[in-house]
Structure formats: structure tokens, C-alpha cells
């Protein structure tokens, strides 16, 4: 038990990688399926362990692990959990088995490679969520691109090569600039303290000249803004989503995009507080533009998947303004918006994940996603209709679903700091309802005219199995938000109130070893 407690993050992160290797080595696809499912469930159980043993009273870093990696450069293997990443870890490990279930029936020759890549991707996502060392984080952050690149490029639609190349190059360019900024920060920290370290907890205290800070913040924010994606860096997203297979879209919308907003909250904002205060109005403005622009573009789409993709641009605009709005004007106002942003990340993962699954369901049956080809489906697929309506309502933020809680908190916080931004963003909620309900109406209701649609089969048990948990969670998150928010509140309040001198306190072993630069011993036990 002692071993599990002190290594739970490594277990959660690397079980998927080991599974990926085991999948490659499995003799048959049927075995590979069970292996991957088993591995992803082990990872989920491990993350449940974190959830239940997580101490909700403290803002400190928990379950920390630290080992030396490249000690002569002060680069370490540091992992930890606090309120900012806890929910995202849970979301990742929760979505993965569901996605594996959704591709259970596929049996082409390359399917084993798909499962292996997918498990590698899970390792990359979890690793970048739990890493607390800049270089260690960067390795996961960028290595994650490789499996996603292949998933879109090998299993995607007609324009997949264009889409996947655009995806990887956009992200790569942003990341490289961030790498340069990370090294500059590392050098600055050395000049101030005489210690070379990429330990994030130490770097939080590094002060930089205002002009330097602006450049560094810009480099970090660009990398994360591309990933989110914020307007005007969003153009890769609709392409990637449209071309990706259903499973790829779900994980992309569910987790990958959140890494961008998570990165803003974890790295860019607390590392460069003055620059954040200066840039906050710009970020809020871009977020609001993203909300309105994404909503209007989604409204105009004829392709259901593109519509959901653009809705992501709009919804993530909320998360961005929620993350930044607290700090706009230079003073931290309240933790409400940030709480909403953290919560909304999860809601978006659940509801948009479900929407992509559902679009995938009808695409599997009809091989088209054009809204014009559907109508009146509710008559032949009643259960599908129920699921789609639940997902839609959660996505538009109906009270009683998680989306309401998240959006309400974000708008409340934003309104306090900038009434104009708050009011415009609220308009986005309205537009969201318009286009999402249009989607629902065009697919589900109206006359059932198309002959091909009259014989459609309702959801299969397997489809039920992966949609039901999402639907239940969407409602639970709306009705009992405190079940989740209580766990994360201390960390969020710590960031919102102290963002100028942000510090996270870690468990004892991590701190006591911080200055031992060239020591080879493994630490953190």
C-alpha cells in the first residue's frame, strides 16, 4: 500500500504505455482488445485511488514523486496532483475505456496499431497533466503529438493528411517557442539563485523584468492558445475534427484541447503574473471573440461534426475567459470564474465527447453527417434521441446539467471584472442554445422523409454501454457540483488569491531534496 501510494501517479501514467507495448505484442486482435481495455481500466482504477485518497482540505501538491533524470541540468522526474489537474486526470482515464469500447467492433488489419497508439496517447496526456518539471512536461506534451498524428492520418477521412499535418505543425511551432522560453526562464532562475532547475515549484518564484516577462508569457501563451485553440489560432481544429475518426475527435475534444487551458492556468498565468495582468484584456477579448465567432460559424454548418467542432471553439472561449478574467485589471477578484473554468473543462469533455460519439453513431449507420440527410430520426431511434438531447442540453448549459454550473460561475466571475465581456459572453450562451437546438431539431424532428432513415437501427447495447456513463455524469455534475468542486476549491482559491506570489507547497520529501542538484539518488520515497 505504501508503494502504491507513493507511486500512484507513475502507475497511472505508465500503465497505458506498458499496455501499448503489450497490445503490439499480442498475437491476435481479439486479445489486443482485451489487453487494451484491461490496461485502460487499471489506469482508471488507479486514478480512482487518487480521487478517494485525495485530501480536499489542502491546496498543496499531493502524491508527489521525484526522481533525478538529468541532474547535471537540474531536470527531474516530478509528478504531483492538486485541484487543478485532479479532475482532468479523472476525465482522461474515464474517457479512454469508453472510447476503446466504441471501437470494439472495428477489425481492419491496422486496428492493433490503433489500440497501441491510443494507449500511448493516454500516457502522453496523463504525463503532461501530472508533470511538475518543465522539461519533463515538455517531453510528454510533444510526444503526445506523434500518436495523435497517426490516429488522424491513418484512420481519418478524405482530407486526413492535410488535416493531420496542419494539426502537428501548428502545435509543434507553438511548442518550440515555448521550449525556448522555458530555457530562458531556467537561465533567469539560475542568475537569481545560482541553482539550475526546471522544477516548476521553484520556478514560480522567479522574477523577470517586465519586458522579458512579456516575451516569455507570449511564447507560453501562444503554445497553449494554439492547443486550446483560441481565436485566431483555431483553424487547425475544424479540419482535424472533421477528418479524425470518431474516437480521435472524442479524445481531441475531451482531453487534448483541455491541455491548452490547463497549461494557461498551470504555467503561463502563475509564472508570469505581471504579464498576465497586462495581457488579460487581450486574452479575454480573444476569448469572447472566439465564443461569438465559434457560435456563429457553428450555426452555419451543414455538417453535424463540423458544427460540434466549432461549438468547441465557442465553449473553450468560456474556459479561457474564466481562467483569465479573475486577473484582468491587475487584481485578483474572485475565484468563481476560475472554478467555473476548471469545472467547464470537464463538462465540455463529457458533453462534447458524447456529441461526437452520437454523430459517430449515425455516421456509422448512414455514412453521412450532413444535417440535410436526416430528420425525424427520433421516431426510429428513440434512445438515440434521448441521448442526443441529454448531451445537447448539457452542452448548452441547461440548469440541472454540469454545463450550467460551469458557465454560470464563469459568467459571474467575468461580469464582476468586466461587465462588457460578461454580457457579450452571455450572448454566446444564447447563440449556443440556438445552434445546438438547431442540430437536435434537424436530426431528430420534422418529417421522416428519407427512405434510408426509416430502417435505422436504434442504439446497440455496446453503444448504450459507452453513452450511458456520459449521460449520467452530465446530470450528476449538474445536480451535485459540490461532489467535484469541494475537492478542487482550495487549489483554485490559492491560485486566484495569490497569483502574484503563487506557491504550491508539496509534500515533505520533495522540498527537502530541492537543492541537491547533482545527487544521483532516487528521491521522493
Amino acid at each position, binding site marked *: 500500500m505504501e508503494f502504491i501510494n507513493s507511486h500512484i501517479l507513475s502507475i497511472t501514467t505508465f500503465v497505458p504505455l506498458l499496455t501499448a507495448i503489450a497490445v503490439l505484442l499480442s498475437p491476435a486482435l481479439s486479445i489486443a482488445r482485451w489487453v487494451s481495455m484491461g490496461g485502460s481500466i487499471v489506469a482508471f482504477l488507479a486514478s480512482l485511488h487518487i480521487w478517494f485518497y485525495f485530501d480536499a482540505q489542502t491546496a498543496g501538491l499531493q502524491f508527489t514523486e521525484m526522481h533525478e533524470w*538529468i541532474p*547535471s541540468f537540474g531536470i527531474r522526474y516530478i509528478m504531483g496532483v492538486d485541484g487543478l489537474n485532479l479532475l482532468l486526470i479523472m476525465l482522461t482515464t474515464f474517457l479512454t475505456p469508453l472510447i476503446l469500447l466504441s471501437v470494439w467492433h472495428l477489425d481492419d488489419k491496422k486496428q492493433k496499431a490503433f489500440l497501441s497508439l491510443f494507449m500511448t496517447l493516454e500516457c502522453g496526456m496523463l504525463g503532461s497533466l501530472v508533470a511538475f518539471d518543465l522539461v519533463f512536461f515538455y517531453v510528454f506534451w510533444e510526444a503526445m503529438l506523434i500518436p495523435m498524428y497517426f490516429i488522424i492520418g491513418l484512420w481519418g477521412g478524405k482530407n486526413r493528411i492535410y488535416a493531420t499535418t496542419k494539426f502537428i505543425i501548428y502545435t509543434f511551432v507553438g511548442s*518550440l517557442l515555448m521550449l525556448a522560453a522555458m530555457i530562458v526562464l531556467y537561465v533567469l532562475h539560475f542568475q537569481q539563485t545560482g541553482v539550475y532547475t526546471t522544477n516548476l515549484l521553484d520556478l514560480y518564484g522567479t522574477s523577470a523584468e517586465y519586458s522579458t516577462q512579456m516575451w516569455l508569457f507570449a511564447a507560453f501563451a501562444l503554445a497553449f492558445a494554439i492547443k486550446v485553440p483560441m481565436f485566431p489560432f483555431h483553424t487547425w481544429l475544424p479540419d482535424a475534427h472533421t477528418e479524425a475518426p470518431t474516437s480521435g475527435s472524442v479524445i481531441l475534444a475531451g482531453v487534448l484541447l483541455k491541455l491548452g487551458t490547463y497549461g494557461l492556468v498551470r504555467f503561463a498565468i502563475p509564472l508570469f503574473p505581471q504579464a498576465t495582468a497586462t495581457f488579460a484584456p487581450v486574452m479575454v477579448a480573444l476569448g469572447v471573440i472566439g465564443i461569438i465567432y465559434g457560435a456563429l460559424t457553428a450555426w452555419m454548418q451543414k455538417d453535424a461534426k463540423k458544427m460540434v467542432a466549432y461549438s468547441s471553439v465557442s465553449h473553450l472561449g468560456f474556459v479561457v475567459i474564466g481562467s483569465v478574467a479573475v486577473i484582468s485589471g491587475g487584481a485578483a477578484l474572485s475565484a468563481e470564474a476560475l472554478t467555473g473554468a476548471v469545472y467547464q473543462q470537464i463538462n465540455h469533455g463529457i458533453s462534447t465527447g458524447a456529441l461526437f460519439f452520437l454523430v459517430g453513431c449515425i455516421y456509422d449507420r448512414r455514412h453521412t453527417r450532413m444535417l440535410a440527410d436526416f430528420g425525424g430520426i427520433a421516431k426510429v431511434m428513440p434512445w438515440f434521441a434521448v441521448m442526443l438531447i441529454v448531451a445537447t442540453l448539457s452542452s448548452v448549459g441547461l440548469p440541472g446539467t454540469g454545463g450550467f454550473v460551469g458557465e454560470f460561475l464563469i459568467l459571474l466571475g467575468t461580469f464582476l471584472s468586466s461587465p462588457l465581456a460578461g454580457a457579450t459572453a452571455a450572448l454566446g450562451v444564447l447563440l449556443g442554445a440556438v445552434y445546438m437546438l438547431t442540430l437536435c431539431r434537424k436530426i431528430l424532428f420534422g418529417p421522416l422523409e428519407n427512405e434510408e432513415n426509416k430502417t435505422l437501427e436504434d442504439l446497440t447495447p455496446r453503444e448504450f454501454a459507452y453513452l450511458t456513463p456520459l449521460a449520467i455524469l452530465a446530470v450528476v455534475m449538474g445536480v451535485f457540483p459540490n461532489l467535484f468542486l469541494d475537492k478542487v476549491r482550495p487549489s483554485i482559491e490559492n491560485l486566484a488569491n495569490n497569483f502574484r506570489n503563487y506557491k504550491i507547497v508539496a509534500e515533505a520529501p520533495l522540498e527537502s531534496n530541492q537543492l541537491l542538484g547533482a545527487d544521483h539518488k532516487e528521491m521522493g520515497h
Partner: protein
Amino acid sequence: MNFNIPSLTAEFYLTTSPVLILCFGALVAMLAGVSRRLGGELVIYSVLLLSLVGALAAAVAASPGVETAYLSGSYLAGVLSRFGQVLILLVSLIVTLLFKATFLRDRFFRGEIASLFLMVITGMLITVASEDLVTLFVGLELSSIGLYALVGYLNPSRRSQEGAIKYFVLGSFAAALLLFGFALLYVSTGSLRLTEVSQAVPKLLGHNWVKLGVVFSLAGISFKLALAPFHLWAPDAYESAPTGLTALMATTVKAMVIILAARFFAGSLASVYEVWLPALMFVAAISMILGNIMALVQSSLKRMLAYSSIAHSGYMAIAICASSANSGSLPVAAVLYYLVGYTIVSLGAFSILMWLENKDNDNLLLDDISGLSKTHPWAAFGLAVCMFSFAGMPPTVGFIGKFFVFNSALINHLTGLVLIGVIGSSISLFYYLRVIVRMYMADPIQLPTQLAPKPSLLVAVVIGATVIANLALGTVLPEAAMKWMVETSKEVAAAPGSAEDSQSVSH
């Protein structure tokens, strides 16, 4: 100048034994080639292997821990020399083994070719272990002239010969530049030893001859490294040479010149960096931009790798620029790490090309590897790992190498160069991905000649080893390897100060 009669002790012979063994091997190979009975493929193969393995063993064993100069600095025995010699010998050994598996085996394993090959390697071993300008020049030219001849002679097709002539003409021009530079340094400082030159140069900075000497030497070295704008020979030479020799050019030649450049700029001329730094920065920046942009439009894989190697020379030059100030041994260690990584990845990529080639198609185009993942899944996987590593994506050695280089540059405030490097890397991802797209996301194209089906066990082992080394240096080994590089590069950083010591040891 003092002309000492060298003390030809047993210790001296022991230390120089790697070079001597190779020279002896070259003679044996040439003599055996004359004889009809002894000139068979197997005999020559054994001579090659024995001399290379012998020299490798000698290089590992015979080198002292402290840098010692023999023959007034003509031969330096020390950790950096050993590092260079071991790297060069290992790669040459692997290339020799790979040649055994190609369609060129009956041409390569002949007396005169093997002899030339060993001479080339001898020249490299001398170059990485010398601080005497004349010896350096002789070593460089011994390897270069041998390579010109090999490129044209090994596979006597029209294209090879054209490439060889271009390589020869431009290479000779570079040699002339370098020699001119060395001569100017000698005229102004009165010494041929780098340690002495480095002591004399700071006092002579007012003289334009010194500056000219440094700049001409820089041009010559840039030529040999294929840094833009002195890169024009590289694409033709890479493309037209038999792939095994291309691998040699991309790895050992680069290693040789990088070590020379480290000794020259980071070691001896570090105190007068203001003379050469702007020029080297310019050359590095142009190489990263031009190399990466030109690689975008290539359809031949070897030509693309040639342009990418120009860009990689540019990244390595960043670290050499960084070693100008009082930066200790870190930048040189970074460039050595990058060099080792680049050598491993290039060797992997070229050995896969060597496996796939055949007599009728020895210059693979992007079209040829279309759909490779379906016909040759392992080759495609290996090449994909190499491409991601070239592009510098984690968890490969390419990323760690790039991190170390950028790190040493930013510590020394070369932000502009790093930004150009970042832009260059972003461009490079595009053409590296094109290879992957062709292999994995396109269907095979009907080719007039089929690609070779299965690799021999040896080729498979080599490729597997490069992939494993690549990933290991990217994940678990960076610390251990970097420690080793720092130890190795300490000599360079310490070189100017320790001139007296090494002199006293030599007599």
C-alpha cells in the same frame, strides 16, 4: 619554433597505434589486391574488419587519461581524441559491415578500394587527434582526397563521376582556403601549434593578417562542414555517392570537422571570439534557413538528407558560437551530444536506404518509399523513428540534443540564433513528415524494380541498435552520456591555459 627530434618511445607507438594499424591495413589490402589468389572478397573483407577492429581496440585501450602531445602537437592523445577516434572507427566498422550486404559488395571489397577506404579513415583519425596546423591539413586532405576518389570509383556510373568531380573541385577550393588561412596564421604568429597560436593571437589582433587567417580558416572549415553558403557541393556529392559513402560523409566527416572546429574555435581562438563569432553566427543562421527550405522541395531522399544535414550543421554551429564567451565546457559538451545523436540517427536512416536499394535503383525517391509501411513495415518504422528524431521530437535523442544546444546558446545570450533554430526546426518538421506521410498514408506505387525484400540479419541488427540507442539517449541515458561529454570536452575548454603543461609533456 623549435625542431625537436621526437622521442619515438614504445609509449608513442602505443598511443598512435590506431593510426598505425589502419596504415598497415591499407598497405596489406593494397598488396593483397594485386595478387590474384589473395585478392578475393573474403580476404579483403577480413583485412578491413581486422584493421578496423584492431584500431578500435587500440583507440579504446591506448589513450591516456591526461591530454598528451607528441611530435610538437602533431599528435594529441587524450579523451577528446579518443572520443573522436572511437566514434569514427565504430561508424566505419558499421559501414563496412553494411557494404557486405549491398549490391556493391563485389566492388567494395577489392584491394584498391579497401585501401583507399582505410586511408580515408586514417586521415580522419589524424585530424581529430592533432593540434598542428600542417598535420591537421594533411589529415583533412588525406580523408577528403580518398573520398573524392571513392565516390567516383566505387560505382563508376556517369552520375557518380559527375558528383565526384564536383566534390573534388569544390573540395579542393575549400582546401585552398583553409591552407591559406593556416598560412596566414603561421605568418603572423610564427607557430603552427594551435596552443601557441592561441597565446599569440590576442596580442596581434591589430594585424589584419591574423583576422584574415581566422576568417579564411573559418571559411575552409565551413566548407568541410557543408555550412551555407559553402554548402553547394553537399547535395550533389550526397546524391551521387553510393549510399554507404554518403553515410560516411554525413557521420564521420561531420564528426571529424566538428571536433576540429571545437578545438579551433571553442578551444584555441575562444579568447578572440569577436573576430570569428559574427561570421560563424551568420553562417549558422544561413545554414539553418537555407538547408531547411531547400530540403522542402527535394524528391530524392538522399538529396533531402543532404540539405537536412546542412541545417543540422547549422544547429551544431550554434553551440560552437555559444562556446565563445567564458562558458566553460558546456557548449562543447552539447555539440558533442548533438553530434553523437545525429550520427546515430543518420546511420539508422542511411542503413535503411542501403537495405532497400538495388543495382537499378540506388537513389531512392519519395515515390519509391510510397506505402513502405505495407511492404516493409520494419523499414518504415525505423525510418519514421529517424525522421521524428531528426525533427527533434521527444522522446528521441534529437530532442535532448536540441535542448542541450539551445540551452547552451541561451545561457550565452544567443537568443536570435535560437529563434532562427526554432523557425528552422518548424520548417524541417514539414519535410520529415512528408517521408512519414508517404510511407504510412499512401499506397505503394508500381515500381519498375522492386525494393529489396528482407534485410540480412546484420542490417536488421544495425538498424535495431540505432533505434534503441536513439530512444535510450532520448529517455534514460541523457545524464550518463552528458556527463561523459562534459568530461570529454573539458580538454577543449582548458586548452589555452594548459599550453605549457602539454608542451612539457611532449619532449
